């Protein structure tokens, strides 16, 4: 490792520290120059020249280190070149002022002092502007006027908006079109697409991906270790050049593993998953892409109008727990966990909230079969808990119209095979819990296969070790 240390590049890394010196010292020199015009601080005149000397020296060092650092890349080109030339100009101008302040200079003394003062003003402006571009480079262009919290919120909403669509049959899916491209879209397009081309790189078209960016091609088929895209994404987040940038959504290690696999297998833009050789580590990841499993996929994609506030307040005062499902969503999750009786008024209020209710917990309440007639009017309902109630098949028959119902919990109710026939017609249903019901094996056989159901009744065998006590006689 030691042999690999490159001292010039280390000097480059000092740039962020060095830049503060010329800003401070040159501003101080300017201040001395101004103050020396007053009677009281006349003596400061003598300090201007040494300050200018050290200021210029540090400016030159800062510019030089900055130049070395700029060759390492990883920055926005346009901003970088602006910052670079401003920096050189600053160092140059500082040197010029230093020359003018010299005693051995050819101009008459009075003109000399005037020139120094006049040149100081553009120098100060240059210092400010260079500093600003520098901070824009490292902190992002909108850093100065960014309130901080908003960008996080934006990132969150974006996260929800660009959620990947589940793939129906993963082994038939195209590796690039169906898996890699959506990943790039989610995590890279913000800076590398038609919108922005940081590092002159675009990832939104196959030809442009092959072309690469400012630093050349981003991948070498079959050679993941040589591929820039793998190198950059695998760097630790603190390191320079790490992609995606610190403040953006990061690739997971499985995401990187996926891209590696694709490159190892020749980086084909045409092949299907089944045509590439299998990779154990990725089995889970690939399966998760088909997931109807992701627990959150039941949430509606489109937002809904704000719910009736008066109805919410009244339900709350009746002892019902009611709140948004999360974030700024207007969809509601309602629970009767703290209220055992389901009364007529509750149901009427629920009906008012029908466009928003997507989750309803009526477990362990007095909810009756007839009450479910009203429940069936909650057209958006996704999750319904009616476990430990007196619900029977006739109650379930009212749920037929619930076309969004995803999760139905019937544990410890009096439902039987009849209910399964009805439930079979709810196309959206994915999860069904039937522990301690009157459902029979025959009934279950007719159950739609896309419904994941659980009849429970788990037992743990008694093992000899269950009662074995060690060490005591």
């Amino acid at each position: 490792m030691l042999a690999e240390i490159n001292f010039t590049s280390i000097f480059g890394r000092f740039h962020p520290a060095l830049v503060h010196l010329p800003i401070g010292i040159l501003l101080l020199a300017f201040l001395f120059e101004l103050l020396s015009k007053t009677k009281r601080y006349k003596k400061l005149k003598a300090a201007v020249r040494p300050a200018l000397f050290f200021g210029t020296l540090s400016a030159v060092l800062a510019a030089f280190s900055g130049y070395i650092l700029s060759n390492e890349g990883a920055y926005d080109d346009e901003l970088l070149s602006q910052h670079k030339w401003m920096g050189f100009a600053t160092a140059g101008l500082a040197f010029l002022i230093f020359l003018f302040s010299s005693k051995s200079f050819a101009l008459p003394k009075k003109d000399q002092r005037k020139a120094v003062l006049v040149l100081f003003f553009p120098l100060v402006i240059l210092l400010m502007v260079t500093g600003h571009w520098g901070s824009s480079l490292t902190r992002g262009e909108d850093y100065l006027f960014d309130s901080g919290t908003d960008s996080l919120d934006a990132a969150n909403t974006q996260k929800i908006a660009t959620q990947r669509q589940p793939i129906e049959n993963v082994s038939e899916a195209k590796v690039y079109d169906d898996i890699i491209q959506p990943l790039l879209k989610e995590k890279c397009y913000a800076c590398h697409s038609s919108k922005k081309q940081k590092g002159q790189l675009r990832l939104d078209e196959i030809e442009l991906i092959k072309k690469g960016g400012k630093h050349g091609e981003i991948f070498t088929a079959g050679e993941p270790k040589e591929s820039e895209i793998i190198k950059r994404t695998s760097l630790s987040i603190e390191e320079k050049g790490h992609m995606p940038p610190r403040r953006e959504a990061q690739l997971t290690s499985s995401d990187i593993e996926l891209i590696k696999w694709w490159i190892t297998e020749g980086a084909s833009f045409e092949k299907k998953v089944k045509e590439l050789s299998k990779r154990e580590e990725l089995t889970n990841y690939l399966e998760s892409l088909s997931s109807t499993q992701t627990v959150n996929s039941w949430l509606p994609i489109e937002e809904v109008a704000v719910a009736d506030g008066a109805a919410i307040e009244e339900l709350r005062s009746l002892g019902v727990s009611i709140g948004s499902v999360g974030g700024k969503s207007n969809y509601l999750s309602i629970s009767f966990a703290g209220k055992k009786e389901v009364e007529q008024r509750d149901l009427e209020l629920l009906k008012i909230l029908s466009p928003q209710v997507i989750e309803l917990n009526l477990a362990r309440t007095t909810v009756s079969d007839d009450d479910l007639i009203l429940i069936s009017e909650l057209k958006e309902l996704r999750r319904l808990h009616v476990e430990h109630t007196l619900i029977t098949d006739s109650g379930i028959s009212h749920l037929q119209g619930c076309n969004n119902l995803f999760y139905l919990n019937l544990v410890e109710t009096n439902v039987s095979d009849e209910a399964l026939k009805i439930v079979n017609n709810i196309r959206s249903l994915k999860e069904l819990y039937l522990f301690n019901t009157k459902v029979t094996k025959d009934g279950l056989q007719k159950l739609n296969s896309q419904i994941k159901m659980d009849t429970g009744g788990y037992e743990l065998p008694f093992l000899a070790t269950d009662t074995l006590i060690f060490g005591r006689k």
Partner: protein
Amino acid sequence: MNNNDFSKLQSVSRRYFLKESAMGLGSLALGSLMGACSSNELRSSQLLDPLSPRPPHFPGKAKSVIYLHMAGSPSQLELFDYKPELAKLHNQDCPPSLLEGKQFAFIRGVPKMLGPQAIFKQHGESRAWISDNLPHLSTIADELSFLKAVNTDQFNHAPAQLFMHTGAPRLGRPSIGSWATYGLGSENSNLPGFVVLTSGGKTPDAGKSVWGSGFLPSVYQGVQCRSEGDPVLYITDPDGISRDLKKKTIAAINDVNQQHYEEFQDPETLTRINQYELAYRMQISVPEVMNINKEPDYIHQLYGTSPGKTSFANNCLLARKLVENGVRFVQLFDWGWDSHGTDVDNALDLGFRNKCRDIDRSITALILDLKQRGLLDQTLIVWGGEFGRTPMQENRDNKQMPFFGRDHHAEAFTMWMAGGGIKRGASWGETDEIGYSAVNGKTSVHDVQATILNQLGFDHEKLTYQFQGRPFRLTDVSGKVISEIVA
């Protein structure tokens, strides 16, 4: 002018006005000074009913958490982290490279290496390594997601427990259950939002601070319930006080409070009224949910419970009942996992196995029971200790120990999570061939906390509370959601 108005006007005399103005200005000044210590940033609805349900930052996958803490810290090397290389080194001197610059709680001089004191096998489709100490849990290996390289920076019990539960090794921070109830409120207005159950004979070394509310309002602190006798101390009415009389008493107190509120409009008065009513409701609901006698026999057999005693099994069953009834955060502490090898009870091949037997069936039962009730997907289960144990055999005071035991080890240990939107059968992180330190997938205590909050729907960086002039959060200034185990 009626009598009431007159008395109101009378109360606003010149003297009263001057007195109140002076007091008012004074208290304004004091308020801004004190604001630095405790600023109440709760929204008004939260002030009136601090446990009212509130939305998380984004729709969470878990609605509640059951955190199983094995106080004393079980040995990962006898349970989940299989190290055949360590067996080969058994009884050899520990190489100096593992000791240089390290600090241990008890190990002095040069200890011997200690091979795994259990037989390991791979289980389930996930091929997870689990030892024969947990024969029941092995059967549901595919439900669990392991973190094999968790790292802490504390090697003594109390600070490590505080770190694990409050995000800081010193006293004074709110516990994770308090943060969760502060963020989400409670789904059931008749029960506390955060319940703590202990077993194993002792409470955790760090005391009640591991479920304290720190600088959050005290309503969010964990309520310790007992599985023997009254679930909460003084919850039953004293002899001779009927429920009816109690109701009348509380109604009378609240009438006075209501008048006070109408006169001064202080929202804190409303909070107090609510508290009285909540306490009254809890007198009925808490004993009801804390009663396991009514559970059917097959459930008792599944969990291995024996009603009326304090046991980890009983606490597991109670945890399920609490979660079923809308409690947000259930914290179980089981004491007795500090396997130093100083006596039979904490020998890795003896007492430790008894502890394993006590949790094996009941934890497995808890997961299966939640599953058959359709609640596993919305209940996050977390298992772990406060740190791990050394691959070396403990040599307290540089002497041979009477039994096999291991010292405290902060560098790398195993935790697992299940349900609540966690992947099934995943494993993240790896230790070196003797299980001393992480070689990849190292995770920190703050990462674990960030992940728990993430499952509940919180961005751990945004769940903050203003205190002493700055926003505080559970994960301090670090923490990253462990996306590798999140489904």
